[in-house]
């Protein structure tokens, strides 16, 4: 068992002939917030999607090298992709609770279809637990049968987090989770992440260095498909070693 939740070894990703991730190596320790930052189009989202093999959905995507989840290469042979995805929850840039399902059903669907819980009672309690964990229970307890369209952007995003937590993953991947959320919702989600990192390893993609500096313990700076620099957040923001990182965090990278 490795001490690292996620570790990559010369991970390369290409769409057709275009290489978008050019061999990155990093190690993400357990139970921390790791922020992947970089300008738009630097490959952050692609890299994140490779960690739960969601990239498989894209027919053109080719992955080489290794991505290790607690020491196990998820691109190895005989890997059960679906169980990898259950262990690594993913939250998206656009808050995407299923619009045709109620708040309750949004969380229940993964549990039911994966046959994770038995019986109505266990299902009820798991859903309550997940909502509680996502700091959403108080706000929706009396309207579990409403549709998510009744929720604010921030609440929708926390519902998505609850949907993911219900599966009891080990790692949470978040792809710019506050990009479509107002400032209050953003603050709530950031507070929630600070709470969740006590139990989960969190990998956060953000295009906003300020967010990385607020909530992450470690940062990786990705630029044009390469990991320019990574390290403890305080160090990266006080004294980055690389000129590009310096210019990026200061907001003067053209």
């Amino acid at each position, binding site marked *: 068992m490795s001490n690292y939740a996620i570790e990559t070894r010369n991970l390369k990703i290409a769409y057709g002939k275009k290489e978008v991730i050019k061999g990155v190596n990093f190690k993400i320790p357990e139970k921390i917030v790791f922020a992947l930052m970089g300008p738009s189009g630097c490959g952050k989202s692609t890299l994140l999607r490779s960690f739960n093999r969601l990239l498989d*959905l894209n027919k053109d995507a080719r992955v080489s090298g290794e991505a290790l989840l607690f020491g196990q290469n998820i691109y190895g042979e005989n890997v059960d992709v*679906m169980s990898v*995805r259950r262990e690594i929850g993913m939250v998206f840039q656009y808050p*995407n609770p*299923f*619009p045709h399902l109620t708040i309750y059903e949004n969380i229940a669907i993964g549990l039911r279809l994966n046959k994770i819980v038995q019986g109505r009672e266990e299902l009820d309690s798991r859903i309550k637990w997940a909502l509680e964990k996502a700091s959403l229970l108080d706000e929706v307890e009396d309207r579990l049968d409403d549709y998510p369209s009744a929720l604010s952007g921030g609440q929708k995003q926390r519902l998505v987090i609850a949907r*993911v937590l219900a*599966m009891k993953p080990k790692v949470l991947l978040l792809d710019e989770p506050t990009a479509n959320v107002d400032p209050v919702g953003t603050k709530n989600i950031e507070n929630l992440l600070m709470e969740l990192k006590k139990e989960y390893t969190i990998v956060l993609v953000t295009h906003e260095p300020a967010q990385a500096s607020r909530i992450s313990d470690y940062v990786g700076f990705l630029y044009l498909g390469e990991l320019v620099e990574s390290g403890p957040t305080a160090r990266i923001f006080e004294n980055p070693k690389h000129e590009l990182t310096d210019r990026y965090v200061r907001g003067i990278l053209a």
Partner: protein
Amino acid sequence: MLSFRQIKDKIFVGLVLAGTFAALFPLFHIICTVVIMGLPAILSRGLVFFTGTLSQGGIGPALYGTFMLAFLSSLIGLPVAFLVGLFVYEYPESKLGGFVKSLLQIMLEFPTILVGVFVMSIMVIPMGTYSALAGAFALAIIMIPYVAVYTAEAMHHIPTTYREASFSLGLSRVKSVFHVLVPMAKRGIMTGVLIAIAKVAGETAPLLFTAGGLYETYPQGVTSPVGAIPLLIYTLIQSPSPADHATAWGAALVLLLIFIGVFVPIRMSLKEVKM
């Protein structure tokens, strides 16, 4: 005093309105004519018009036949069409997927009478008789491209993010598609189904050589001939008798009502899904 710009503006608005009116006029004309001509026929004969045989002055067997054909063709066509639609959506880049997609486009435009001829050659001739089954089969073939294309389109309109969300919960492709995405596309798929049913309920050509026609008795079973309202109208209009013409107009009104009856309520009752 109007400025030149304002006049130009008014002329443009006028042209748009005139164009719209020109496009809608035939539609209103058809509806009005059918109601004006059909309503007296129905009112003068009363309930008998809906239940009686042709010699009693009614269109009962044809009405029954239309429902029967619509039901049977849906039974045959919808499941196939739905699966084909999903296949086209799920495997757009595969060779077979691309081929099926082009095939559906061709089927949409295919002359329907040729479908009738085809079904006649493979079913009516071997069975030795016109039958409800053959008619339904011909209608099902017409139905398939509509439902399949609408299904694929409706699925296609679901934002990728929901697909990703579903897969990232560790669901298999089959579970994602059938339990998450299809329910999301329900409205679009149902629209396709309704359009297809309305379309086949009004079809005449494919039934000419397949369903046969039956207007003096109610059909006995799926392997015996049936009538249908469009087919009946087609037959009656060729007759010189004014009474037959009146029946035809009444039947046309009934067909129109079926059309509206299928469309409006189900479309309204389908819950709007906000993305």
